[in-house]
């Protein structure tokens, strides 16, 4: 070993230094090979340093789903992104389009998104009818006649950092849709010339649908696009309101179809569900809607004391009867449960009784006493059974405590006997 070391020194050989040089050369070759395969995109070199509205940072663009799918600036804006010379890169000769005119945006997006063969490469389940739908929408129609204030693709979907709708940060994620629409529709100044209300978002924000979507995180709860459509955005129209609501509230719609209100509302050109429930500001309905108080809706049209008012009172009374029966059974069953009694069957039964009440509240939309009574009677029967089970559990609890008292007296007597016996044998 020592001989080899001396020989290396004498010949001025430095093995460690040589290894470093070979490694560095290899790294350079590897980096060159890797760089060779990449497409050059010089756009961001300048635009990442420019202020808004021309600035697009590398970080922002990397979030864009198009960039992630391999599309570049040139895919929309044209030009030659491989050239370092700005004049060549942004020359009309190279197909550069510059800033896309608002009127052209839907057609530009549609050039890819309406091509099923092209879209299939990235996402086979993505629809390709957006542009066609957009042309049927109020937005699309107004754009066609030159109104550039209406929404185009980029207004809702954003641009340069466009995310998939399933991404919670996307402006068109179900949770964010209402805020996105509200950017224009809640702006009274912006909407002034259209003569439509701008309180939809404020009303929707206090609605049961908004609460379900944002508080309970139920992504199936409706937002603006659920009722109005998205790309084909249009007001539902008076004669179609129940068709929109019935997409989710199927049973209520079936009952409403059988009710006398259906024909009466149609004859009076009244907007179905909206008459009683309103539209954007729908709050959780209570039985008070059937009442004659401030929350009641029937007496807005009906006359006190008429046959319909009598029917209303009968329906309300049926609902109240079942509600009270459930509450009474609940009280007894919960007291029994808190006493440690096994009443899980009765508790499960209470859920069934509550289901009957919910069903009756749905059947109310038929406004037929006989139909409602079927659900009410079923619920009353279950609630009565549960009440009985709760009472039996309480009787059993009292028996147990009586048994305990007697047993403790017996134990006490034995203890006293033992104590006396000990005293006797020890004396």
């Amino acid at each position, binding site marked *: 070993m020592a001989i080899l070391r001396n020989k290396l020194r004498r010949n001025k050989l430095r093995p460690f230094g040589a290894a470093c040089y070979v490694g560095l050369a290899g790294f350079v070759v590897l980096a060159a090979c890797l760089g060779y395969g990449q497409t050059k995109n010089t756009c961001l070199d300048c635009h990442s340093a420019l202020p808004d509205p021309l600035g697009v940072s590398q970080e922002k663009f990397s979030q864009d789903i198009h960039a992630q799918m391999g599309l570049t600036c040139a895919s929309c804006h044209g030009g030659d992104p491989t050239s370092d010379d700005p004049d060549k890169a942004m020359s009309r000769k190279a197909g550069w389009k510059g800033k896309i005119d608002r009127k052209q945006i839907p057609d530009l997006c549609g050039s890819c998104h309406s091509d099923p063969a092209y879209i299939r490469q990235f996402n086979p389940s993505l629809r390709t009818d957006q542009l066609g739908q957009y042309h049927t929408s109020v937005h699309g129609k107004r754009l066609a006649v030159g109104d550039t204030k209406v929404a185009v693709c980029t207004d809702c979907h954003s641009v340069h950092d466009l995310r998939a709708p399933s991404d919670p940060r996307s402006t068109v994620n179900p949770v964010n849709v209402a805020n996105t629409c509200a950017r224009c529709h809640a702006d009274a100044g912006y909407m002034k010339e259209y003569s439509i209300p701008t309180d939809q978002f404020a009303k929707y924000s206090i609605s049961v649908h908004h609460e379900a979507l944002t508080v309970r995180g139920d992504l199936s709860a409706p937002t603006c696009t659920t009722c109005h459509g998205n790309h084909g955005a249009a007001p539902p129209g008076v004669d179609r309101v129940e068709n929109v609501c019935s997409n989710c509230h199927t049973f209520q719609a079936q009952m409403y179809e059988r009710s006398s209100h259906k024909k009466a509302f149609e004859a009076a050109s009244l907007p179905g569900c909206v008459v009683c429930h309103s539209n954007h500001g729908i709050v959780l309905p209570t039985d008070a809607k059937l009442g004659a108080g401030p929350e009641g809706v029937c007496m807005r049209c009906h006359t006190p004391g008429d046959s319909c008012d009598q029917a209303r009172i009968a329906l309300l009374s049926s609902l109240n009867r079942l509600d009270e029966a459930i509450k009474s059974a609940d009280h007894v069953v919960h007291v029994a449960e808190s006493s*440690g009694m096994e009443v899980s069957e009765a508790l499960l039964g209470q859920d069934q009784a509550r289901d009957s009440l919910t069903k009756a509240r749905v059947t109310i939309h038929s406004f037929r006493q006989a139909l409602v009574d079927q659900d009410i009677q079923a619920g009353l029967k279950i609630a009565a059974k549960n009440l009985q089970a709760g009472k039996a559990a309480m009787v059993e609890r009292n028996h*147990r*405590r009586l048994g*305990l008292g007697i047993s*403790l007296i017996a*134990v006490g007597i034995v203890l006293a006997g033992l*104590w006396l*016996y000990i005293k006797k044998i020890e004396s």
Partner: protein
Amino acid sequence: MSPLRDVRNWLDERIGWDDLVAPLRKKTVPLHRLSYWYFLGGITLFLFGIQMVTGILLLLYYRPGASEAFESVQYIMTQVQFGWLIRSIHSWSANLMIFTAFAHMFSVLFLKAYRKPRELTWISGVILLFLVMGFGFSGYLLPWNTLAFFATKVGTEITGQVPIVGKPMMIFLRGGEEVTGATLTRFFGFHVAVLPGLTTVLILLHLLLVQRLGISVPPKLELQWTANPSAKREMKFFPNFMLREMMAWYVALGVLGALAAVFPWNLGVKADPFVPAPAGIKPEWYFLFMFQTLKLIPSKVWFIDGDILGVLAFGLAGLLWVLLPFFESDQPSHTKGWITGFAVFALAYMAGMSVYGYLAK
């Protein structure tokens, strides 16, 4: 001649009954101001007896298996005559037994009853406590409710943290990678066959050693009585101490009955392996101090995984606890105060961590 005496004579002629019970007649119990601590071992034994009887009664209706266990316990509690009482007494008695076993162990520790020649009594007693905790762990799963399911999942996961043997041990306990019906039948087997067999043998050994070595006296008193034998005070084990012990058993029976009648043991909701674990899930109170400690240990301590460190620390502490008598002097005049200090620390730590664990979210 009374029938009882006839039976006794009959037994004496055949198996020498009088010779067999002679040691019991001669056996005495030291009488001093701390004598009442001697009742704790007997109460624990009485509660074990209750467990045996109520456990056998529950066995008549209990069906092990993920699809039947919960329903069978529900049936016991709602349909079987006095089934609720038997199950509640079994559950409450299990908890009381673990409590009295702990109390008995600490009383032995503070009265220094573990000293030579009672090392084996201590060792068998500590192993008995571990077995009793094993009863608690295995029995907790048997009703197959949500809390039991997830507590077993967490508990067996902790076992899996033991280096080298942890993972195979966890799979052995679970009967697979996950807590399933196989775990339930396995725990049932441990609970009704393996643990009772081991415990019965160890209890017999423990009682034999107590009988053979007599009851210990605190070192200070031992010195006083050695210096002045006339000051020594004793009570006959039979019938004087036994009658008092019976009084303690009756009190325990009354307490058990009251707890079972006023606070019947809850059944909970049937376990569903596909739902997420309930928030803030905790083990039974006797495992809480270990659980809370493991929660407080950082995920990495230097280069060692926090959980592994915690499990190893508890394993080492358990081993040292078993071997505790070998660190003590066998001379009453040379007893080591640090052992008492260590016992006070251990008791305070266990109590403090349990309370912290109970209150922590």
